């Protein structure tokens, strides 16, 4: 039953503040049942893009469609947004606070309390329901903010740096919920500047830099098309072989292993055969995928 029409569609969208272009000519499509990563360094224009999708700011030019129709403010009720800059009312009780945010999303009053209890339990915060927000640690507050974004069961969930500052246990807890929502057919837009995080969770990605899109596509395709072969090695001897420019084009020394980038035309098989033939003892030989970070750096330098 997964609908494959894009639920978010940006068409040549631009936004500028004075003379400064925050977003230029950006087009993208995010589909239900997938996690869409909006990636880029700080200041690339991620937050401005998200604010336009949530209908907080309007683009100067271009169009935004949500769920197949031109964006309207009524659609805000179907969106959950966890901004990067986020907060809670310090002196308001957690339960009331969640109720207030749910009311702002037009959640029916009937059954609202059960819904709040359910999510507090899932995020292991039930005993904090009647506490004021200022009594909670920063990590706990972040989980409460996460609940405000999902309490109304949005069709589109937008998470801006959702895991920053969380401990690994809570990151897993939140990730699990996000993956549940994904399999329930929701559209999730996930924005971060940490490529390692995006690599583990996203299905599709869009890299933006200095207000412009660098590239967009499914993560798997991007990695495949980025035909670059690296091998991680832990060996004794064989330095001469690694220096052969016909075989290796680049060597990166780590503490107890080396990472080599194979020369164009050379295969990992060739390298392994040469090493074994010359009697080098090999304790590790592993093909490594191109890292998103490396892809990003290369794409950005290409574009410039």
């Amino acid at each position, binding site marked *: 039953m997964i609908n494959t029409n894009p639920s978010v569609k940006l068409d040549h969208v631009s936004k500028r503040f004075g003379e400064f272009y925050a977003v230029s000519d950006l087009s993208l499509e995010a589909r239900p049942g997938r996690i869409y990563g909006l990636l880029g360094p700080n200041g690339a224009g991620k937050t401005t893009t998200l*604010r336009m999708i*949530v*209908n*907080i*700011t309007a683009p100067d030019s271009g169009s935004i469609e949500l769920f197949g129709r031109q964006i309207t*403010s009524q659609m*805000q*009720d179907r*969106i959950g*947004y966890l*901004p990067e*800059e*986020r*907060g*809670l*009312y*310090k*002196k*308001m009780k957690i339960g009331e606070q969640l109720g*207030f*945010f749910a*009311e*702002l*999303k*037009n959640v029916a009053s009937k059954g609202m309390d059960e819904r709040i209890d359910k999510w507090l339990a899932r995020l292991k915060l039930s005993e904090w329901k009647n506490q004021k927000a200022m009594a909670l640690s920063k990590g706990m507050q972040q989980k409460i*903010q996460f609940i*405000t974004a999902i309490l109304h069961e949005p069709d589109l969930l937008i998470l801006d740096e959702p895991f920053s500052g969380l401990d690994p246990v809570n990151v897993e807890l939140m990730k699990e919920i996000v993956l549940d929502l994904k399999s329930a057919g929701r559209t999730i837009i996930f924005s971060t500047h940490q490529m390692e995080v995006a690599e583990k969770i996203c299905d599709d990605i869009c890299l933006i830099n200095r207000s412009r899109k660098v590239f967009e596509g499914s993560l798997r395709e991007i990695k495949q098309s980025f035909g670059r072969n690296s091998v991680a090695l832990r060996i004794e001897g064989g330095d001469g072989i690694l220096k052969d420019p016909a075989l290796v084009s680049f060597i990166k020394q780590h503490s107890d292993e080396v990472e080599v980038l194979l020369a164009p035309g050379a295969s990992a098989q060739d390298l392994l055969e040469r090493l074994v033939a010359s009697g080098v003892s090999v304790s590790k030989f592993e093909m490594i995928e191109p890292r998103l970070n490396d892809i990003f750096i290369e794409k950005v330098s290409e574009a410039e």
Partner: protein
Amino acid sequence: MRKFFAVVKREYVQRVRTKMFIFVTILAPLVISLFAIVPAFIFSLRAGGPIKIAVVDETGSIYQRITDPLLKDRNQAEEEPAGDNANVLNANNRSPGRVPDKFTDTRFELELIPLNGRSIEQLRSELNQRVRAEDLDGYLILPAKLIQGQSPEFFGRNTGDVFTKEHLESVINRAVREERLATANIDVKVVRELSQPVDLRAFKVSERGEERDSGEGFIMVFAAGFVIYLTILMYGQIILGAVIEEKETRIAEILFSSLKPFTLMVGKLIGISLVALTQLGVWGLVLAVFAAIAAPELSIRIPSIAPIVFVYFALFFLLGYFIYATIYALVGSMVTTAQEGGQLAMPIILLLVIGFYLAFPVIQSPDSSLAFWVSMVPFFAPITMLVRIVTLTPPFWQIALSLFIGFGTVMLLIWIAARVYRTGMLMYGKRASIPEVWRWVRQS
């Protein structure tokens, strides 16, 4: 609409429930009545023992005339029948500008220093020593030609005690006049009758007939202006704090992803106005109960107020509240911290203070053209027009015009503030400059 009511409800419920609100609402009437009672009580306290004064009387006749009024309790002296106490001439007692009696209610101990052929200089050095030794608080020299106009002299440790000085002066005055009358063979009783002071009784003529007004009217006007001034100031600060809180904690961004900035801002303004009205309502109720039960018992007269005045009070309060609260909301969305907000809000407070002080000339001449014009300026109207209504109700068209201009201004201010608010609330890190704010207002 549901979102709007959610905001109004949150602002109202969260604030009315706070201990601070309950505390201020209940305690303010108590504190105000304390302010009325405590100063009177403190002034009535007598610190230390009686004031010891030595008197050198070169005239030989004045000392007898000052002992009685100085040694007797003043109030007691006044109540004594005139005939029994012919020496005391109270004609001067109610002269305007005098400090009320209870402030000068000081006890004295007098000691007559006989001359015994010594010179004044000798006596003075002797008495100076006694003053330094704190055996005396001071001494009074009544020169021989006192009756002819020579000045008496007082030497004391604490000449800064103006109450004692003034008291001595008035007593000597009376004694000297009495002595002069006695010399001229005029009966003191006749003088007393002839110099009976008048008490100007003021009556207010209104639609409700004539009413005695001996100051309560002024107090009512002043109190109404003051309550409006103070409440607007207080709730303006609350708005400022509320807006800055949402900006500082970045809640604004989550809120804007759910409702329009305009809805949020107006919901906030209205929610907090209901808090203010609740508080004023409680105070009004306390006043009404006080007027009905306690006032007759304590024989405090509370002037009767036409019910329409309460309606005007509420209308002009709301006018002032929305004018100033909207500006406060605008300022709050421009700044990053409460301190910055306080600085930027200074001109607003100044405007409010000017409005408050304008109430004084308006009370004096409520139908002057100054009164008319200042009550048409929306920033001053809440206080000045209300003062006019209570003192000398202007024609209805003037009240209506003032309200019309005022609420028109409120609409304009809300329109401007909403535009600044929308952008300002999402701008972190630095205070918005005036040109920037102007640009936000102009762009759609």
